[in-house]
């Protein structure tokens, strides 16, 4: 045995406190920065507001800019720049949320399996998603020799575009939305269908059995589940009388008994159908048949590597936010802030073109409410994924056609009758909301009790240290 003496120094370990502070600064700072950018840019990307901002800046700087006096090209350029900025911020938000969701999901899943999970890169392994992304970018961008080169290269962009376009109509707060489309729900459902096109293209162009199976399964699954999802979406649309996402939120209230999920007898059923269908459309477990590792290697993305693979990954996890935000928008009251109705927003806004400071505070509140609700639903999706095993193809189809579709129609019919009843006797509506909320709270309490009994049955205790 020759050679130098083995060095067993403890290593140049960074100071744990510094690591924790750095992780916190990055992990909280980056999302907060993006939220702030959305907060500032989404109201200011309207032409009138952008012009007002430039005018205000001109006054502050003493240059006396007056956009309304500019040529039409100049005004359009100003509008274009503000819109482009907002688009960049929104797509970055999707990417960052996707990455952080990966980290959070891995942490939660490892706890559910009594493991520790990511713990190497940064505090609690937070930078693992950055490390993974960097690693993926450095991989060789491989196109199989027998693949359809053009389609193989194009497929990830369909997926990414289908994902990014949702953010156009997705609300973040009371006035925080890139474009409050009149047909918001319809638009969101349409552009998410682009993802299926991308997945099908990926599966076909890879020229691989696994990829083709995955792509076909995905197409069959997503197209099937769009039917119950669409019918379930009709319930809040009918209750609100509008397709606009902001309009649907405005038709609800801040309190749980005013949410569409709990305000009507068919609400819970419609929410459930919508939630399950969303899981299936997002290819989430238990509906991850298109990328079933044990059967299909990685399904439609078997042949992908490097940045193209990263795009699929980004969209898959970024979809969690989109799914959750849609569920919150349609059924869980969106950004509605308690004790701050539309009058409060209108009063705080003032009469000037540029809103007053109090209005911005209310916007931040509404954004916080929306983000917290969305993150709770994201957690629910993660939780379901690590609880349920993958279902079979026939079970997937049975669930859709024999159960979800009839249930969705039943919810729709009940809602129609309900609207007639409530128009005759409005008190019934409030009573139903309160009763359903109380029932939900009771169910939650029973669930927690069962959970703590489970912990006690294992002769263990609730211990959240070492997170």
């Amino acid at each position, binding site marked *: *045995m020759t050679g130098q003496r083995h060095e067993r120094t403890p290593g140049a370990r960074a100071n744990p406190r510094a690591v924790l502070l750095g992780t916190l600064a990055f992990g909280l700072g980056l999302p907060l920065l993006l939220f702030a950018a959305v907060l500032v840019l989404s109201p200011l990307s309207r032409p009138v507001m952008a012009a007002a901002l430039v005018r205000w800046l001109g006054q502050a700087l003493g240059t006396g800019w007056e956009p309304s006096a500019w040529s039409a090209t100049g005004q359009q350029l100003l509008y274009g720049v503000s819109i482009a900025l907002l688009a960049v911020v929104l797509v970055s938000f999707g990417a960052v949320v996707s990455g952080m969701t990966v980290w959070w999901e891995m942490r939660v899943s490892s*706890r559910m399996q009594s493991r*520790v999970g990511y713990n190497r890169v940064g505090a609690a392994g937070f930078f693992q998603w950055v490390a993974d992304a960097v690693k993926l970018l450095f991989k060789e961008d491989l196109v199989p020799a027998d693949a359809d080169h053009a389609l193989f290269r194009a497929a990830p962009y369909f997926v990414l575009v289908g994902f990014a376009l949702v953010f156009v109509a997705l609300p973040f707060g009371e006035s925080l939305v890139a474009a409050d489309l009149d047909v918001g729900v319809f638009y969101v459902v349409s552009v998410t269908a682009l993802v299926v096109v991308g997945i099908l293209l990926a599966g076909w162009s890879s020229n691989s059995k696994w990829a083709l199976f995955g792509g076909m399964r995905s197409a069959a699954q997503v197209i099937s589940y769009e039917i119950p999802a669409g019918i379930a979406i009709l319930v809040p649309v009918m209750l609100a009388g509008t397709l606009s996402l902001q309009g649907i939120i405005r038709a609800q209230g801040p309190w749980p008994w005013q949410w569409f999920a709990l305000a009507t007898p068919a609400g819970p059923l419609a929410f459930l159908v919508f939630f399950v269908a969303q899981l299936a459309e997002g290819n989430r477990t238990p509906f991850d048949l298109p990328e079933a590792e044990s059967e299909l290697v990685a399904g439609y993305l078997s042949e992908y590597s490097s940045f193209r693979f990263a795009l699929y990954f980004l969209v898959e996890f970024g979809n969690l936010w989109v799914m959750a935000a849609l569920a919150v928008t349609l059924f869980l009251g969106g950004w509605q802030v308690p004790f701050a109705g539309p009058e409060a927003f209108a009063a705080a806004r003032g009469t000037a073109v540029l809103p007053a400071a109090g209005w911005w505070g209310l916007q931040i509140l509404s954004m916080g409410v929306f983000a917290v609700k969305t993150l709770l639903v994201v957690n629910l999706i993660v939780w379901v994924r690590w609880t349920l095993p993958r279902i079979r193809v026939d079970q997937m189809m049975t669930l859709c056609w024999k*159960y979800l579709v009839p249930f969705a129609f039943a919810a729709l019919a009940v809602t129609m009758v309900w609207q007639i009843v409530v128009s005759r006797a409005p008190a019934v509506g409030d009573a139903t909301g309160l009763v359903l909320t109380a029932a939900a709270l009771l169910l939650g309490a029973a*669930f927690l009790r*069962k959970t703590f009994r489970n912990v006690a049955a294992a002769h*263990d205790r609730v211990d959240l240290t070492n997170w």
Partner: protein
Amino acid sequence: MSQAFREYAAPVVRTFTSIWDGLSITLSHLLRRPTTIQYPDRTPISVRDMLPPRYRGFLEVDAAICTGCQACERACPISVIAIAVEKDPAQGNQRVVTQFDIDLAKCMFCGLCVEPCPTGSIQHTREFEGSQRHVRNLVVRWADPLKPFPVYKVPKGADHHPRAPLGSLVRAKMEWQRWDAPAPEFLPPEPKVAAPAVPAAIPAAAATAPPAAASAAPSTSPTVKEEPKP
């Protein structure tokens, strides 16, 4: 309630109850402490000390009490151990062990070599960390061909043979070598140019042996023929 309705409704009920139970179970695990031990550097005590006492880790030979009986070599079912014993004329035909190689990469940790050892010289330790870039570096040489150790003579009536602390020797061997140490060359490298081979370059120690024998391969031909240096 008709049969058909029951067949339709039963899966719905089962779905809800099983998801209810399942979510509760996963949540209860989420709230509990993980059972995983974070090997290697976040354990309260060294993993080596957490292992059960009869753990079969790396083999260790205490040369001070090795009788050179080669029982372990014969017991090994897969020829992991290679021992060469010679007589040393300089020490009055004292029997010396010139080679005692254990290939840890090949060892299956069955423990059959430990059983026949008359003095307990060869033992399993609780050492298990020995990553090496080159698999040949996992051949542990317990005898130095240049400094062979004399065999141990069992004192009459002795039922106990003092031994170095178990694990200390193999740990020293493992720590002696870098994990990425270069592997030993078994064969002389191919001549780069078509130059004539230079016999004078071969060390005198290996002059009488074929070049391939200057290796750790379990060969019967002894590596060293010259006088052992005390």
